């Protein structure tokens, strides 16, 4: 394992920006959460804009009838002509009648529902009483005025915490939605170390709710779960601080923090991790040749920026110019910040035009940004990696470390490959 840098970014000043933010709102999280929780339905109470966002954000019109929908507020709802709560009851009753497979229903607040102060908490309580025990109704806000992109998942998981059963013994809880295949790999590694009893939040099905209590330790696999962590802490759980499990270094440090907490000895740990670590290193090496010595600039998007910058600088040889995050939870990404060598500007929040000026001035070899910015920057001659792919692709733990490096290397390799200029 390489040594930590002499000076990391833990104490670096943070450029706090305030202005136009080119980011998704928290509703976007529904796109992966509804696949992860296979018996959950997400009902956004919002406007046509919310519905349009959901169908545009990921081009998800592949599912004939997805497990999410928008109850679009109309003029009569706003003018108080129709009791919005009654309307909502009707919509939910129809929905649940048509979808008997649904066991969890999330009422998801939006900008308009928050502004008109439509009380979805009250609605969820009332509807839970009506549809219990078959359906559990919860609510959270994915509105843009309160949540940025991945904070939607945070709000969703935090909303589930009060309903979790009480744990009476020592238990390990892993919080953060992972693709099933990655979650299974993680559970396999932990099991090989002798850690059998591991619960995940979110669980794949409503009946498998994890328990939480004063003897629960919680490890996060996503950096954006500040509210969820706070809610779990209120239930008595204790956070295992660790770098996020990206790349060889992050995964090893994360697993070791969990292993130590669960009383796994160093030999067992080494035996279990040796082979997958070696594989991860080999896979990373296949891409790091392309990445080595190149500069990278992160626009704020998913809060994965700091852990990923740590991975790219320490494991792939890149130089970070700026690492922008929509929000920095120090309690979660602190270990990653400490490992990130000093140098890059660390920015929080966004004033997109100013940040674009900084990117243009720096002319980084690779710019990680949202879909709204990628093509315009490409046309200015910059090479970009769309950030949303980092959220929609399996990238955690050893077996995906090479894929993760590959995601960043591909735009650079492509640029080298294309020969579009006229022959000399």
């Amino acid at each position, binding site marked *: 394992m390489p040594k930590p840098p002499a000076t990391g970014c833990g104490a670096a000043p943070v450029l706090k920006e305030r202005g136009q*933010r080119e980011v998704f709102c928290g509703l976007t999280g529904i796109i992966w959460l509804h696949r992860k929780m296979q018996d959950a339905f997400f009902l956004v109470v919002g*406007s*046509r804009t919310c519905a349009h966002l959901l169908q545009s954000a990921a081009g998800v019109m592949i599912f004939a009838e997805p497990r999410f929908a928008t109850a679009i507020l109309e003029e009569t709802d706003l003018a108080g002509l129709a009791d919005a709560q009654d309307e909502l009851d009707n919509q939910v009753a129809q*929905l649940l009648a048509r979808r008997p497979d649904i066991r969890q229903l999330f009422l998801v607040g939006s*900008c308009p529902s928050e*502004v008109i102060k439509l009380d979805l908490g009250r609605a969820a309580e009332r509807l839970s009483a009506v549809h219990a025990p078959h359906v559990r109704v919860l609510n959270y806000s994915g509105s843009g005025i309160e949540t940025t992109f991945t904070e939607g998942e945070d709000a969703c998981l935090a909303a589930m915490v009060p309903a979790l059963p009480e744990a009476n013994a020592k238990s390990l809880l892993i919080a953060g939605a992972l693709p099933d295949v990655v979650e299974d790999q993680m559970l396999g590694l932990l099991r090989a170390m002798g850690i059998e009893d591991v619960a995940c939040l979110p669980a794949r099905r409503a009946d498998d709710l994890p328990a939480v209590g004063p003897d629960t330790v919680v490890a996060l696999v996503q950096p954006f779960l500040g509210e969820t962590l706070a809610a779990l802490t209120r239930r008595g759980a204790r956070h295992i601080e660790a770098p996020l499990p990206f790349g060889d270094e992050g995964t090893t440090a994360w697993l070791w923090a969990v292993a130590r907490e669960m009383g796994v000895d160093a030999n067992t740990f080494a035996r279990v991790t040796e082979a997958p670590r070696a594989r991860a290193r080999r896979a990373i090496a296949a891409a790091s040749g392309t990445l080595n010595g190149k500069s990278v600039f992160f626009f704020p998007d998913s809060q994965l920026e700091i852990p990923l910058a740590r991975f790219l600088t320490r494991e792939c040889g890149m130089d970070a110019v700026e690492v922008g995050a929509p929000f920095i939870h120090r309690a979660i990404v602190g270990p990653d910040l400490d490992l990130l060598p000093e140098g890059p500007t660390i920015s929080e929040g966004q004033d997109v035009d100013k940040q674009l000026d900084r990117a243009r001035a720096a002319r980084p070899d690779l710019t990680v940004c949202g879909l*709204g910015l990628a093509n315009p920057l490409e046309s200015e001659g910059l090479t970009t990696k769309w950030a949303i792919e980092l959220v929609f692709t399996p990238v955690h733990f050893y077996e995906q470390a090479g894929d993760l490096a590959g995601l960043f290397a591909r735009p650079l390799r492509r640029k080298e490959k294309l020969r579009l200029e006229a022959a000399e």
Partner: protein
Amino acid sequence: MKLSVWTYEGPPHVGAMRVATGMRGLHYVLHAPQGDTYADLLFTMIERRDRRPPVTYTTFQARDLGSDTADLFRTACEDAVARFRPEAIIVGASCTAELIQDDPGGMAETMDLGGIPVIPLELPSYQRKENFGADETFYQVVKRLAQPMERTARPTVNILGPTGLGFRHRDDVAEITGLLADMGIEVNVCAPMGATPADIARLGAAHANVLLYPETGETAARWCEKTLGQPFTKTVPMGVGATRDFIAEIRAMLPDALAPSEAGLRLPWYSASVDSTYLTGKRVFLFGDATHVMAAARIARDEMGFEVCGMGCYNREFARPMRAAAKEYGLSALITDDYLEVERAIEDAAPEMILGTQMERHIGKRLGIPCAVISAPVHVQDFPARYSPVMGFEGANVIFDTWVHPLVMGLEEHLLHMFREDFEFHDAAGPSHHGGKAVARAEDAGGQPPDPRSISGPVMEETGADVVTWLAEAERELKKIPFFVRGKARRNTETFAAERGVREISVDTLYEAKAHYAR
């Protein structure tokens, strides 16, 4: 409150964005919460634009509410004007900002923005949709900037309606500009697409207006007719007949206009060619925006020889002309923006092909019915690299190819009829010119997978006097009919049986019906 899974149109401020993004030198300051910036990617990704849309979002957050959202708007306005130096700005609110009632239009008008025109937009987000937003925005821009002025010496027209993110607008404009040039007519201004605010100011120099897209340009065209005295074309030049009518309309407005060459037009010969006889009477279901559907219906019936068995549109603003058009085809129009309702209508009509939007493409996929896309909402596939207009004579050629492609072609169709029980060459294998792996016959594979186009299972669900039951042998016979006509055969047979009070359908009933409906 209305439950919606997929929507055909975005909110009205996205319509305003389509106008602003289509134009140059116009900037849109949009009072909107963080997250509404998702709309940028429609333009940068779906349309592959190389520039960000000219939109500044105030991106207010919860902590700003009640304190300084209005200040945020003012700062955003000043910054946008200083940074982008637009010739004019449009200002408005998205759905959430509409609720907090900051009145961005009023604020901007009182600000010192260097004297550039400030055009406020009132777009009611909880009542109207994207097309209205585009039409209204373009109208407001024209009303504010255009002036009556002297006409050009030579015959000129304006092209009105094309926007950013429009279905084939880029190529339609090129095709119609070329057609007009062939007629000796210059285009004075094309707007919104490609126009600057200064160009809008000289709209009045043209002798007439060509309205290509009534959805996004009709209100402006009517205003120009009234205020600038410019007549506008009523025929949308889509298809051979409509393009010829359009030419006649132009020549009536501008007597100096010449007759254009039809040298490149291939649709009529392709349609007359004997290999096209298999297209005769194919039942098609049409759905999309009213303009494209009404034009497509005429092409389908008169130029392809199809039978239109259902038609409708999602934009309620055009319900009246749509209903009138449907009547001509002996149909009643389906006016809805609920895609589940469209799906039910398509299932009931059991067409052999769907001409629709990307939504209907998904419906077709589910029902096993081929589909060609004729209308917005757009998808990245609707912006092909090659030149592919749907208007004018080349547009007619493109339409012929596009509509024929999803079908099983000519002799292949006959072969499927002949060898329909062949283990390899069966209908589930799909048209041979499409990609994808041929699948084994369900019967051979053993078991019955839940095939969306399977006609087995409970055939008639109703109970009562008109219950019709398929006898096992008749059902087996029905399965031998290729899938692209099976739906029609089943429906015709059931109708035939019901009309005659036949309760059980035998093989004989099936062939009696076949003879009855033979054409």
